């Protein structure tokens, strides 16, 4: 596989469902080693765009390529070895243990029986997002945040050791939504660590604008199915944009440590 080509690329995507235009002419490229955050208000089309990029939703117009090859031409097994997807929520009805769920991440690599190598990866992925302590517990007995971390570990385990000439792709839909402060940090750091180690590319739907500004290399702002801004926090995090996109007033300030910009939402009055 050629690493010079675009890793994940969408050209002129339109998604129309029930005569509603959910995605309106979106083009997006994600480069090797890049952490891209997708932000925007509820109903802006973030999950729809993410699902279009995974192939779950077929666009009415436009096309999506993974390593230069259209998604439709990928065999599921081949795609699963280089790209992992974390959905917003996973509905489970059977009482699998945490370890069994994370081991499922190794499914694309081994036909059933895990090797020692697979077990080491499972252990590393579990420890990266701090689920090792309850590895033998039944997933159904965990809290929402603990469960979310288990699935994050599964997704990390899936592409942990993708072939060396390939930079794996992670597509994460609200990975931090149900996590406490500490574990939001743990998860985003684990992802960054993975990006650094493997030159992976990540697209994550996020809600916390300040966490996003600190973590992402690039922020894609989505509003009513359109990309309205696309750039670093430095370039895009502005008072006017927050008012345009989210319809709230905010004040932009800078962290003393890193000088990165952050936004304080004004709750008091107009």
């Amino acid at each position, binding site marked *: 596989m050629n690493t010079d080509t675009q890793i994940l690329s969408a050209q002129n995507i339109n998604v129309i469902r029930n005569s509603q235009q959910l995605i309106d002419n979106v083009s997006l490229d994600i480069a090797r080693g890049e952490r891209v955050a997708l932000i925007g208000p509820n109903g802006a089309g973030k999950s729809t765009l993410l699902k279009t990029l995974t192939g779950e939703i077929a666009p009415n117009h436009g096309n999506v390529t993974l390593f230069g090859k259209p998604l439709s031409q990928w065999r599921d097994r081949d795609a699963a070895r280089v790209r992992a997807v974390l959905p917003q929520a996973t509905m489970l009805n*059977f009482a*699998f243990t945490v370890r069994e769920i994370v081991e499922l991440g190794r*499914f694309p690599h081994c036909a059933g029986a895990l090797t020692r190598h697979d077990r080491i990866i499972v252990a590393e992925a579990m420890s990266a997002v701090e689920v090792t302590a309850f590895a033998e517990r039944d997933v*159904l007995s965990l809290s929402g945040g603990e469960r979310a971390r288990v699935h994050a570990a599964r997704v990390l385990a899936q592409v942990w050791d993708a072939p060396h000439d390939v930079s794996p792709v992670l597509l994460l839909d609200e990975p931090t939504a149900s996590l406490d402060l500490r574990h939001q940090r743990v998860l985003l750091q684990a992802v960054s660590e993975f990006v650094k180690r493997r030159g992976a590319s990540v697209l994550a739907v996020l809600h916390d604008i300040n966490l996003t500004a600190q973590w992402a290399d690039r922020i894609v702002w989505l509003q009513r199915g359109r990309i309205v801004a696309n750039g670093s926090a430095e370039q895009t995090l502005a008072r006017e944009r927050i008012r345009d996109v989210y319809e709230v007033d905010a004040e932009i300030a800078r962290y003393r440590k890193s000088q990165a910009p952050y936004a304080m939402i004004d709750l008091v009055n107009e």
Partner: protein
Amino acid sequence: MTAGPIAVAVAVFALAVGAFPIAPSQVLSILGAGIGLVAPEAIDAQQAAVLWSIRVPRVLLGAAVGAGLAVAGALMQGLFRNPIADPGLIGVTSGAALAAAFVIVLGAVFPGKLVRELGNYLLPFAAFFGGALAALIVKHVATRDGVTSVFTMLLAGIAISALASAGIGLLAYIATDTQLRLLTFWTLGSLGSANWSVVAIVGFTISIALILSVRLAAPLNALALGEFEAKHLGVDVQRMKNIVLLVALAAVGVSVAFCGMIGFIGLVAPHCVRLLCGPDHRMLLPASALLGGTLLVAADLVARTVVAPAELPIGILTALLGVPFFVVLLRRQHGQTTSG
């Protein structure tokens, strides 16, 4: 692992008990003589005849049908991602029942030559094709653009079952008393049809189904996360659905065809295994087969001894055992979903 020895003990006991009792030690001697381990002089010829021509086929049929129904149940539960799915959900059982009712009540419409040629096999063959046809209709209704929706399949299964029971009702309405009695007994299930030819047909079909199911175990684990999640883990979900449906159709179809409707094994066996060994299908499928086979052999033992010399229909027993269990299961699942 104590399950294997228990299964063997149940089988030996089932071979020993009956209208013509044979001591368990004799059972072992006769079986030993059959494979040349025991000198033929050491066994009673009459006991050997009873064992080989009546008991052994019956126990083997019970084991095969129990295993087939339990594995089909586990597969359906995996496919529907729900622990209370039943192997009859896709319409096989009700389609088979309609076909069986048709043969019992309107058997005279079949050409005499066909009836003579098929003899006792007319009803099983008709039932199998009725079950297969119903399942294929359900699958067809639920498939659009090459993608089968399990949710639509569930609804289509309910619809086809309702249609089939209307047909059965109509046939029961015009049936004579004798036909009605036959039909009722058929719907309650029985291993009474056991003989070596039946064992060969049922055993062969269910063995193939069990072998195919081994390869479905790991993909079914991935499917537990959801259909798209399984796809993102590299599972060809549509292909897996096709194989699961085919395997369940074969196992349930052949069981219903020769033994009538035997409920709850497909529900209870996989659930017990999940409680004991967890939900991993690599363990669940083979263990359900073992437990389902053992349960049905045990239930049949009770069915043919409790009102001897008559026989209780086995479906009555599996339902008596299964329904309370099913209710407990529902209550537990309800508790889980409301508290989670």
